[in-house]
């Protein structure tokens, strides 16, 4: 599916992870300009980050996060060459995950 792009870099023991997710993040409050009807909400509800099988961070999102959302966080305990895994789930039950090597 390739909806997640990840950049992870370790420096002085701290790994900075940047993730970009392809997702409409429809809040459910926008009206379709043609039909006048509300466009149903379709947004990522949770993003989780795992390192070596441990959950490092979890985010709860809703329609207030921008379309094609971005997230960055930092954590310790990882080394270059390690893998970081980012997963997301949305309110319609869709999901995806991707892994990247820490540089």
């Amino acid at each position, binding site marked *: 599916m*390739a*909806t997640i*792009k990840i*950049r992870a870099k370790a420096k002085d023991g701290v790994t900075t992870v*940047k*993730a*970009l997710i*392809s997702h*409409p993040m429809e809040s459910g409050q926008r009206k379709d300009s043609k039909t006048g009807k509300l466009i149903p909400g379709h947004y990522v509800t949770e993003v989780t980050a795992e390192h070596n099988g441990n959950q490092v961070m979890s985010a709860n999102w809703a329609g207030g996060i*921008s*379309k*094609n959302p*971005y997230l*960055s966080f930092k954590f310790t305990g990882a080394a270059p060459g390690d893998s970081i895994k980012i997963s997301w789930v949305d309110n319609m039950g869709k999901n995806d995950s991707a892994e990247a090597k820490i540089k």
Partner: protein
Amino acid sequence: MKKTLATLGLALLIALPLSAGATPQDDLADFQKYYMERFPNTPFEDFANGVYSIDAASREQWLEIEEFAPYELNLSKGEELFNKPFANGKTYASCFENGGIGIRQNYPYFDTERGEVITLELAINECREANGEKPLGWKKGAIADISAYMAYTSRGNVFNIEIPNDPRALAAYERGKKHFYQKRGQLNMACADCHKFYAGNMVRADLLSPALGHLTHFPVYRSKWGGLGTTHRRYGGCNEQVRAKSFPAQGEEYRALEYFHTYMSNGLAVNGPGARK
């Protein structure tokens, strides 16, 4: 820097007759000189960054977006699409110089055999049709993704659009130039009004970008669109903003405009795809 309507009118009156005798090279020199004098603190290369070259506050936000710009998703897709073979087994590489890599700065060009301006998007669709594939929509989607990827591989390459010594090429250039300076629509405004004479000023809360450097960063991911769009998508939108009827994407009018418009940025480097508000 207030310019009254009278001064504006006068400036145009003076500009037009003069330009009748001016060559494209003269126009280019005048055009770029105008912006360099208007924004003396902006280094020439930085005009490729549009309003971010002339406003510190928005530049900071743009840099934050550039940390991981949304168009990166389009780039991954574009690369995939670019490399995917057609049904007949060939790829886009077979239609382009250097396999389609690092060539964005060569577009648009005037094809003297066909007597037409060829833009990158036009070339992409012609490649598809030559290989038995259906053409893509001109304004967004796959064509923008592919164009973005091709632009990305060309980042840093300097534009040096040529106007060959051919009356048809000159006519296309002049047609584009005319569009740029011609008032249109209910709001009776020309591209030049916002992007030349009033560049750097505000239209409500929008800062007007200088036309110098406009096309270096296309296709563009606009927060407003929530997606990536091509040059002609933006042209259509701009015409409609002044409540003028837009022209068909990749029709003669917009290709002529793109030809003039890109020529005016000769000397600047490709930096597409770009991220804008």
